[in-house]
């Protein structure tokens, strides 16, 4: 079979089983677009901005576990994609981004729409390639997909000069079956001796706690995690990225930890004697002040990436390996050992945790005459029976969604945790809906975030993506406003979002259904109506209390035991 470079690009995508490619055409990728035109296997989704393409590919990847693919042109196409690439990088999301490049002879000449894409993206990709020869396309794609999806996943950029895809140069095509890279060998399993040591420590613990993160979701290790945690009967808390890996409604689950984590989760972290960290990376929003992080704990850390271990917090028992394999090995060792947890100590520990739970740290005013954002998220949970995919933007609404939508399944909570990218939610929702056409997909957003990628409403119309957008509209960049209230004496410098559009009309002008909801008593009915419209995108502009803050809160740089629980409260 003789194919041109452009045809080889498409053929490689087919070989990798790519269903969708999110993209935007331009000069440098026109040969590839021409090859896309004459085939049916890979469906191209035309976004309205390249940032949307990368976030949509990302949402697809997060909700399926399969690599998301985006295609953009050179220059501004590539730079617009960078935010989405960096977002995926920070959260270790498998993604392959194809960027057009000016023809090879022009590289370095400041040609029209030329940027050094490989240079610009280098710090925010797992790896990147510049293809210099049509003969290298197939092998490069094979490597790119392998790198993106294996080990600690991440985005890979393939930069393709236009002449490499020349339709007039045809070469024989075959796709490499096997791949071996001498410089890249992700670990296949954890060290058994270390796993035994960890189990021994875990069984001798008096105040143990599991602290799990996005790695559990990424490795599809939910089942193994649930088995281990239930078997031991220990409490478990999760990072923002790990929500859903362990059922949020389970009694052993303490809720999210960290800056806006629950009182019981953070106090358990502070008091624990054995911390079992699994697929989590001790991010600063989780640890707070490192010096007072888990002061009494022996720390076990399971992670696929050796560089995550002892990066921010010194670890006592490191286990490098894929989470799923390590967890199942832990279960095996536990069974073999016949050991039991210390039941009396564990009973005392749960009693202590229940006392902390008594603080009811997520309480809010349920009788409010203005809609509280917490109430809106709880209503969303009720109406969707807790089974929706929830894509979120970044800010207060993100924290409320994380706190109040009890995620019982992995890959349902889709948000930009590491980079904190406003504008992520809507395009990510598109990727999720493409992958799960029958599922209910909610986008929880704010009036500031949504405007960062609002143009994607047109994409949703073109491809009939019936997202349900719940805009928690408080007129402010809520999280910025909250910090200004707390730390800048209420000087709300440029956090008020003036001149908002009429979101109902805006949604309608894109061909969607718009709703404005202003009273708590109207919320559930309206939401049911919205979710009842199975084939329409419904944009719910929910007017919420502008003064509501996210609690509990640990100030940046403070310890887990220093939390504000409610407005005006002292540190506890």
């Amino acid at each position: 079979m003789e194919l041109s470079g452009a045809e080889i690009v498409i053929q490689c995508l087919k070989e990798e089983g790519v269903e969708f490619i999110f993209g935007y055409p331009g000069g440098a990728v026109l040969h590839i677009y021409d090859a896309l035109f004459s085939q049916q296997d890979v469906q191209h989704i035309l976004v309205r901005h390249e940032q949307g393409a990368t976030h949509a590919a990302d949402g697809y990847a997060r909700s399926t576990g399969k690599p998301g693919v985006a295609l953009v042109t050179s220059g501004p196409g590539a730079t617009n994609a960078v935010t989405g690439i960096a977002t995926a990088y920070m959260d270790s999301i498998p993604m392959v981004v194809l960027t057009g490049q000016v023809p090879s002879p022009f590289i370095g000449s400041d040609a029209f729409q030329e940027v050094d894409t490989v240079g610009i993206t280098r710090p925010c990709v797992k790896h990147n390639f510049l293809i210099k020869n049509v003969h290298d396309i197939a092998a490069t794609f094979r490597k790119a997909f392998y790198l993106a999806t294996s080990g600690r996943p991440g985005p890979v950029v393939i930069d393709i000069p236009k002449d490499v895809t020349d339709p007039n140069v045809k070469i024989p095509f075959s796709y490499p079956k096997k791949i071996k890279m001498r410089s890249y060998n992700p670990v296949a399993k954890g060290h058994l001796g270390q796993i035994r040591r960890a189990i021994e420590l875990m069984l001798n613990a008096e105040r143990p706690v599991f602290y799990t993160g996005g790695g559990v979701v990424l490795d599809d290790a939910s089942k193994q995690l649930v088995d281990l945690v239930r078997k031991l009967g220990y409490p478990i808390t999760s990072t923002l990225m790990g929500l859903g890996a362990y059922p949020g409604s389970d009694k052993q689950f303490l809720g999210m930890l960290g800056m806006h984590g629950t009182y019981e989760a953070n106090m358990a972290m502070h008091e624990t004697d054995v911390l079992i960290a699994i697929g989590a990376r001790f991010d600063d929003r989780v640890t707070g002040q490192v010096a007072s992080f888990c002061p009494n704990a022996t720390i076990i850390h399971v992670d696929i990436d050796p560089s995550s271990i002892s990066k921010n917090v010194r670890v006592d028992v490191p286990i490098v390996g894929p989470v799923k394999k390590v967890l199942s090995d832990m279960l095996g060792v536990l069974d073999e050992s016949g050991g039991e947890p210390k039941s009396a100590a564990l009973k005392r520990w749960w009693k202590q945790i229940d006392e902390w739970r008594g603080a009811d740290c997520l309480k809010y005013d349920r009788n409010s005459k203005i809609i509280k954002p917490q109430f809106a998220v709880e209503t969303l949970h009720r109406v969707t029976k807790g089974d929706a995919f929830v894509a979120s933007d970044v800010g207060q609404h993100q924290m409320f969604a994380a706190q109040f939508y009890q995620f019982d399944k992995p890959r349902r909570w889709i948000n930009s945790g590491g980079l904190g990218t406003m504008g992520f939610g809507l395009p990510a929702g598109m990727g999720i809906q493409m992958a799960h056409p029958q599922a209910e997909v909610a986008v929880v957003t704010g009036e500031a975030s949504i405007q960062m990628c609002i143009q994607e409403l047109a994409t949703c119309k073109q491809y009939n993506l019936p997202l349900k957008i719940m805009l928690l509209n408080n007129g402010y960049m809520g999280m910025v406003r909250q910090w200004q209230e707390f730390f800048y004496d209420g000087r709300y410098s440029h956090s008020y979002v003036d001149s908002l559009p009429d979101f109902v009309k805006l949604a309608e002008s894109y061909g969607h259904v718009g709703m404005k909801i202003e009273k708590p008593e109207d919320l559930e009915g309206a939401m049911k109506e919205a979710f009842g419209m199975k084939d329409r995108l419904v944009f719910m502009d929910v007017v919420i209390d502008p003064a509501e803050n996210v609690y509990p809160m640990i100030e940046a740089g403070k310890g887990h035991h220093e939390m504000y629980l409610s407005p005006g409260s002292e540190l506890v």
Partner: protein
Amino acid sequence: MRHIISILLENESGALSRVAGLFSARGYNIESLTVAPTEDATLSRMTLVTRGDEAIIEQITKQLNKLVEVVKLLDLSDGPHIEREMMMIKLKAENGQRDEVLRLVEIFRGKVVDVTDTTFVVELTGKSAKLDAFIKAAQEESVVEVVRSGPLGIARGSKGLKL
């Protein structure tokens, strides 16, 4: 503490900038860096000198290992090793000073590799500290130009950093 790290990496364009970029992005310092192809044309060998406490050096080696193009890596400071740097130094040597300069070169076991009426170019290899000492011994006003390779390192013993 000062560490000297040897790295085998794929001899591909961009590999060097990945290493350099890693150091600047994560705020590690590079004291020196040398790189050249090896007997295997697909591999380059890099010798990198950096400074940091134990935790930082641990992160540096882990982050370097994470780069897809890094094939193998060894912190030479973990064991006995030999370290050599080469320097070429152009010294003013006019009438009356020439013998003194030559004596200095001899003491340091250097070689004069270029001569003019007024200057010598001296080639010198050794540990970085020895090169420092030579510069100090040559009078400051006589130094016209200095070029140094940065240290190269190899571990002592029979084992080699190979594929």
